[in-house]
């Protein structure tokens, strides 16, 4: 009456191959979507690049500038969209670090170009933006950067004409290094430059808000901000 059992090893091996195939498909699908993301980032960057060039050309062409014609809000919205995508990719696309870093460099370059253009517009069209350059590093090198990012995100929501440009201090980009040099930033992070003047990290929201409030135009109307790219954990 005994029911002796035999092991069908072939079934164990077949099961392994089927499971491995499911895993392989999941990895392929994940890579496929990540590549799509990178393509989307590239496409946004190209669009921003074209828009910046167009705005620069407009500014150069029009000696008697009609400031109404040179839009900036659309460009800033695109930069925001790009920033949030790069931030997401930095955190979630582990196997494409190098590619994401390249995109981040391109983004930083676009930020610098936007910053310079907006400064020119601000002067020529008498638009009163408050410009904040924010330099961060990862939380191991800059324990206060998370706090600074949170405060700046909050402030740029509250003060639409505060334009925050965020830069990874350690990004290997010559234009960024030049910006760091001319802004007289040391490696004491987080570092913030308000309207061209480096300020000491004020440690809390109220102190930083006080500095920005002092420079903020009373009759501010247009909401123009850029998002910060977070530090990679």
């Amino acid at each position, binding site marked *: *009456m*005994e*029911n002796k*059992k035999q092991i069908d090893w072939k079934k164990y091996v077949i*099961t392994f191959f089927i*499971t491995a195939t499911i*895993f392989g498909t999941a990895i392929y699908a994940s890579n496929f979507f990540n590549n799509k993301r990178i393509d989307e980032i590239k496409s946004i960057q190209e669009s921003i690049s074209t828009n910046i060039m167009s705005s620069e050309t407009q500014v150069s062409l029009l000696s008697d500038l009609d400031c109404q014609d040179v839009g900036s809000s659309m460009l800033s919205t695109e930069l925001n969209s790009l920033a949030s995508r790069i931030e997401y990719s930095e955190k979630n696309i582990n196997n494409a670090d190098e590619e994401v870093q390249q995109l981040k460099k391109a983004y930083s370059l676009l930020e610098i170009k936007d910053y310079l253009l907006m400064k020119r517009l601000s002067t020529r069209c008498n638009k009163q933006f408050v410009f904040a350059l924010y330099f961060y590093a990862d939380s191991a090198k800059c324990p206060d950067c998370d706090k600074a990012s*949170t*405060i700046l995100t909050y402030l740029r929501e509250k003060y639409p004409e505060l334009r925050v440009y965020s830069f990874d201090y350690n990004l290997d980009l010559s234009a960024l290094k030049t910006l760091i040099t001319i802004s007289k930033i040391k490696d004491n992070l987080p570092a913030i430059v308000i309207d061209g003047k480096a300020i000491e990290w004020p440690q809390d929201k109220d102190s930083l808000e006080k500095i920005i409030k002092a420079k903020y135009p009373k009759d501010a109307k247009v909401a123009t901000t850029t998002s910060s790219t977070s530090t990679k954990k």
Partner: protein
Amino acid sequence: MQTIVSTLGTTVIFFSLYFEVFLLISLFESKKKRKELSTLEYYFPPVTILIPIWNEESTIVDTVESLLNLDYPKDKLHIMVIDDGSTDRSLEALQKFKGHPIVEVYSKPNGGKYTALNFGIEKMKTDFVGCLDADSFVDKNALKNIMRRFTDPEVMAVTPSMIIEKPSNILRKMQRAEYSYGNFMRKAYGSIGAIHITPGPFSFFRKEVFQKIGMYKHAHNTEDMEMAMRMQKNHMMIVNEPGALVFTVGPDTIKKLYKQRVRWVSGFLGNLIDYRAMLLNKKHGDLGLIVLPFAAFQIIITFILIGISIHKTGMQVYKYIYQLMTVGFSAPIFDFGWFFVDTSVLSILTVTLFLFIISLIMYGYKTVYGKWRISIEMFYFVFLYSFIAPFWLIKSVYNNIKGVHAPWR
């Protein structure tokens, strides 16, 4: 930390998928054999059905009557109700069957379900015996479908398919999906000779099983699992008959469900420890090599998943509290669009596993109702169980470490 969570999650999903695929292949392989079984001639040997009761005054009459309605020759059927020292009016209710030619009622001092079963086995005069819990009812074809499986002399026990009938609330609906999943598992285990529970409601045995390997034991209050494990240890064949339908009600409150599951899982762990020699033992075939190890692994998996959930929720809560402390209250900003949908390998695999489980529950429905169906209760089962199951798992592990016996009620 992110890497640890991802590695653990991926490992858990790999083993879970491996196990599900293994069972599906096994079922697929046994398709031809199952087709042959469905053409078996009916076989009507004398059989005794034991109903151990303890305070079942509200259901016992219906349970006995469902047995009297069985499509089985009445001169071959013996129903034995064993009252295990009830303190309610169960015995009064059973007066209805006084003098009935095939219903016998016995009363004994309270000693636990296994003592009532042993009492009946000692008194019975047939070569086959089955049991039915007093909160369960049977389909009229259940017994004849079961008994024809005994035409194979190798078969020592047959288990049925269990159904939660007409679930009255979400909790019972979840259990219906769970039982459907259980029916798939039992069918798959049956195809590889790895059934390790002979459920209290309507499992049947040859009398010689008890003569050869002994009577029921206390077995951490899960005598149905221990008996199956003992049979497997002695290489006795247990099969599943999907066409034998047993309806049960299932707990209707979280508290009752929690108590039932603590008893089941504590008993499972206790028996697993008692029969640990079978784990990873080639002599016991797929049961020893994959089914029992995976059952044990499932407990560990649950603890890993609890850990991952606590970590993820904790990170979100920390982030929010941090923001609250830094800048005060401000509405959280969400990013929308396909770009921000999580398409990590772990997420895709989690969705795949989820779809696998839903498909297997659907298969379980097909086994019982004969057609594929999808219903909201499957989602209740997959999502809501994830929140409540950890509580009884933790308590069961605690019970086993501390040597606490989970009570019946």
